């Protein structure tokens, strides 16, 4: 995006004039990080949610601790859309550093609530928006002596101002405050006071001049409001994870920290203090994945979580897991790469590197959750898959899905036991007859049996190594044994392919097919509605895992033009599909790429599709066109 609060696609404007706009707009609070605006934003979000209004909040924060600009966007949508909108309607401007740009970015007809001391000069002098000056600092100063607390409460005052201007109910605010300050009644009351301060300032000093307002509705019943990383942490807990090794990195850390908190709460024996889970902060990502593999080798369900730089560092060990067939669950909460990139921005940039991570011929199953509920489900599933197929399994989420709150239907309690895969106990070994052969394909599915260290049987032991080995796990440099192993691993990958979640397909015989995955789902769903409104029907296939399921090929085969929509520069899934689907289907595929670092909006999907409906992009047209293509694909809607 040009600016976190930038104007949308050319010509888009907020509700013009004074006609009422109910529950269908976006509000942005521009503040400074480290000022505690986070809790104000949460209270606002939860209050709207409590009124039954579908909300979709998104944080835009810097890779920094204090003093830099941060934006909080909350979208209200009666139809429940959760994708980012490229423009905002109501701006709460509290940050002098960005005041001019923030004001400039507003669409005509927008509303600007701003700290009164910010000057109405330059871009802020425009007359096509409604400006409500509020003396936040003065109000706070009058009541609060402590400067830190004052900075903090300023944010809560804005909640009061917004509540009064939009008509947020007291009861809803009350329950939001309850949730936010569960065990801190003192904090609750001082925050409520600040909200009241804002409310009464509006009542006493401002005259409502715009048409934006909220109304209680029935749009959130039975829903959760949860971040993907918390959902995934719960999935890990319910999936029986007992060893978690991690190294802090944004935006992965919160998954681990949520899991630690859940383990503190649910896995700790109140009497003895014993904890049925090890959570180790490793010295780096190489060690984190090593501990994960070591624990899984010894039979625990083990995981690590990281983001791009950590994935790169894990490359060697993940190849070991692949070749030696050791389970592991690895979360990658993707952020903007390459390298350190933009640590606090979102992207789907690690798809191809995770899929084939490590040197040599390697290939790994990758789960691609597209909703917070799938973050929960796929987290659980990942442990079953890792055990079942004895190989590292990736779960690729991203910053948008992982760190923002999303509305979701409730999560299902898991049915049935853990799938621990093919593990032979001492008794099994006793009944086996033949000597145990660790890497033999006895069942024809190319998945061998294993034993765990500590199994009390003289035939249980075997040797795990990343070098050449035969069916009995003996060291060998034999070409035949090597080729046999590699061919079996390729067959195993086909077994895995069949076991991975199938895509979710919505088809009504349209000419146009859309393929997307992960957090792009929200934007694609909305874009389909908008396209349909323009008379353009599209079918949709949401890929949920790699290796790609055969159904995806079927979907492509049924559509003359298929748009692969993703949030990276190089069209990573597009490339995978180009090389894995039947070659004859290659010409149907077109690539829509968005790589601004903020969550893809529906507009970008529409624009990407329409542009190529008119003039097919050159991405599929080979090398001669490649140079040109790099300037025309990608970019914002």
């Amino acid at each position, binding site marked *: 995006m040009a600016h976190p609060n930038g104007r949308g696609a050319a010509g888009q404007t907020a509700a013009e004039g004074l006609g009422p706009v109910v529950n269908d707009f976006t509000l942005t609070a521009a503040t400074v990080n480290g000022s505690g605006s986070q809790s104000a934003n949460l209270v606002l979000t939860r209050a709207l949610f409590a009124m039954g209004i579908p909300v979709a909040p998104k944080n835009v924060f810097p890779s920094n601790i204090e003093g830099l600009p941060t934006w909080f966007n909350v979208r209200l949508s009666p139809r429940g859309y959760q994708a980012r909108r490229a423009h905002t309607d109501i701006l709460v401007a509290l940050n002098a550093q960005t005041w001019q740009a923030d004001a400039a970015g507003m669409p005509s007809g927008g509303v600007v609530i701003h700290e009164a001391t910010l000057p109405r000069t330059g871009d802020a002098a425009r007359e096509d928006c409604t400006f409500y000056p509020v003396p936040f600092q003065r109000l706070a100063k009058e009541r609060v002596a402590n400067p830190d607390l004052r900075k903090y409460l300023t944010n809560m005052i804005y909640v009061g101002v917004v509540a009064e201007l939009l008509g947020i109910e007291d009861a809803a605010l009350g329950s939001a405050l309850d949730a936010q300050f569960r065990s801190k009644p003192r904090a609750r009351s001082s925050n409520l006071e600040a909200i009241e301060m804002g409310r009464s300032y509006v009542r006493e000093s401002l005259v409502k001049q715009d048409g934006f307002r909220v109304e209680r509705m029935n749009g959130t019943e039975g829903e959760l409001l949860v971040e993907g990383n918390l959902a995934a942490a719960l999935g890990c807990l*319910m999936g029986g994870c007992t060893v978690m090794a991690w190294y802090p990195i944004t935006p992965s850390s919160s998954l681990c920290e949520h899991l630690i908190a859940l383990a503190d709460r649910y896995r700790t024996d109140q009497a003895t203090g014993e904890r*049925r889970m090890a959570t180790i902060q490793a010295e780096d990502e190489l060690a984190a994945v090593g501990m994960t593999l070591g624990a899984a080798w010894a039979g625990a369900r083990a995981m690590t979580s990281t983001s791009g730089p950590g994935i790169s560092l894990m490359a060697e060990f993940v190849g070991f897991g692949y070749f030696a067939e050791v389970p592991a669950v690895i979360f990658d909460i993707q952020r903007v790469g390459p390298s350190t990139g933009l640590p606090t921005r979102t992207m789907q940039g690690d798809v191809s590197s995770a899929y084939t991570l490590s040197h040599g011929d390697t290939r790994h199953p990758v789960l691609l959750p597209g909703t917070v509920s799938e973050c929960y489900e796929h987290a659980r599933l990942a442990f079953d898959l890792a055990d079942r197929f004895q190989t590292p399994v990736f779960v690729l989420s991203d910053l948008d899905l992982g760190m923002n709150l999303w509305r979701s239907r409730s999560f299902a309690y898991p049915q049935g036991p853990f799938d621990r895969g093919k593990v032979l106990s001492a008794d099994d070994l006793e009944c086996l007859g033949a000597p145990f052969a660790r890497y033999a394909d006895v069942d024809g599915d190319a998945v061998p049996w294993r034993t765990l260290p500590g199994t009390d049987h003289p035939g249980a032991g075997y040797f795990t190594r990343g070098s050449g080995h035969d069916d009995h796990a003996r060291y060998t440099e034999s070409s035949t044994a090597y080729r046999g192993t590699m061919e079996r691993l390729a067959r195993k990958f086909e077994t895995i392919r069949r076991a991975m979640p199938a895509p979710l397909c919505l088809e009504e015989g349209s000419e146009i097919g859309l393929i997307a995955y992960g957090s792009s789902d929200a934007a694609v769903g909305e874009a389909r509605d908008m396209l349909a409104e323009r008379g353009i029907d599209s079918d949709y296939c949401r890929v949920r895992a790699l290796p790609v399921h055969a159904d995806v090929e079927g979907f492509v085969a049924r559509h003359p033009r298929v748009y692969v929509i993703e949030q990276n520069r190089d069209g990573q899934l597009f490339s995978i599909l180009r090389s894995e689907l039947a070659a004859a289907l290659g010409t149907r595929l077109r690539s829509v790429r968005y790589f601004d670092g903020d969550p893809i909006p529906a507009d970008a999907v529409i624009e990407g599709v329409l542009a190529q409906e008119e003039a097919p992009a050159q991405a599929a047209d080979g090398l001669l066109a490649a140079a040109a293509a790099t300037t025309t694909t990608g970019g914002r809607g």
Partner: protein
Amino acid sequence: MTATATPPPAAGPRNRIGIGRETYKGLPTTLCAGCGHNSITNHLIKALYESAIPPHRLAKTSGIGCSSKAIAYFVESAHGLNAVHGRMPSITTGAKLADRELVMVGISGDGDTASIGLGQYCHLIRRNVDCTYIVEDNGVYGLTKGQFSATADIGSVQKKGQVNEFETIDICGLAVELGASFVARSFSGDGKQLVPLLRAAFAHRGTAVLDVISPCVTFNDHEGSTKSYEYVKAHDTVLQELDFIPADREIVVDYPEGTTTTVRLHDGSEMVLRKLGPEHDPSDRLAALRVVLEGRSRGELVTGLLYVDPEMADLTERERLPQVPLRDLGEAELRLSPDAFAQLLAEWA
């Protein structure tokens, strides 16, 4: 699961748990004839047999190198894992967390530990992961054909005449400085010293570091090398004569009054130390640093038990793990109940 593996029906002497020495053997070595690593393997077999470690409880881990191959050459029936280069510590840590009942024995080389694996080595020590960590230290990279490793002494001469320009990274000095709970140095040729040290290492709860000088006959056993058999024999300063007394055995030898110190390990077994070399108190961290540093500056190789703190909490204790191995826990212990689950989700609504 019962406590012992089914012993093979062989005849001959057996240890306390009824297992013969044969069972502690491994595959035939593929290392060079005369390699120090092979001697260490033999001492390990003896120590494991004498300490009656149940073979199925043993988990052997290593990195990459000639030394790292050695875990294939003892207790063939035990599980073993050859990790990637330098990463044995993290594998060991993970395995121990999964199953605290495993007896972890890790073998590494000086390249594996002091170069690529140095970070993991230091952090394993910091966590005091319960394991025996043996560095088979020959001052060179054997498997890649004789380059200097980071433990090579400054001034040591390579086979082709090149002189090492860099200060050694001292496996023991480093461990002591980092706060390790058990640090010893030995020599592959000195089974009398190494076997009791190994047995004490098995008995110790926490990381027991053993830096065992282990000459590479192919690439680092020539004149000018400070890790050759000849050099080590000439410069070995042995601190103590060592006896290991298992928990269930009485001290039977009569040591003359005042000549010995006894270290009581966490499991009740004891090490009896009889001073041979310079005065040294293995519970004094600074003294351990001094003895290492001064030895090095005199060109001596000080061997023996350098430091031990038998009571330092190991990682499983610090993590407050239950007695039952984590990997044995099932759905009942690990999942939230349906009620708790519903209640938690209600908080998120």
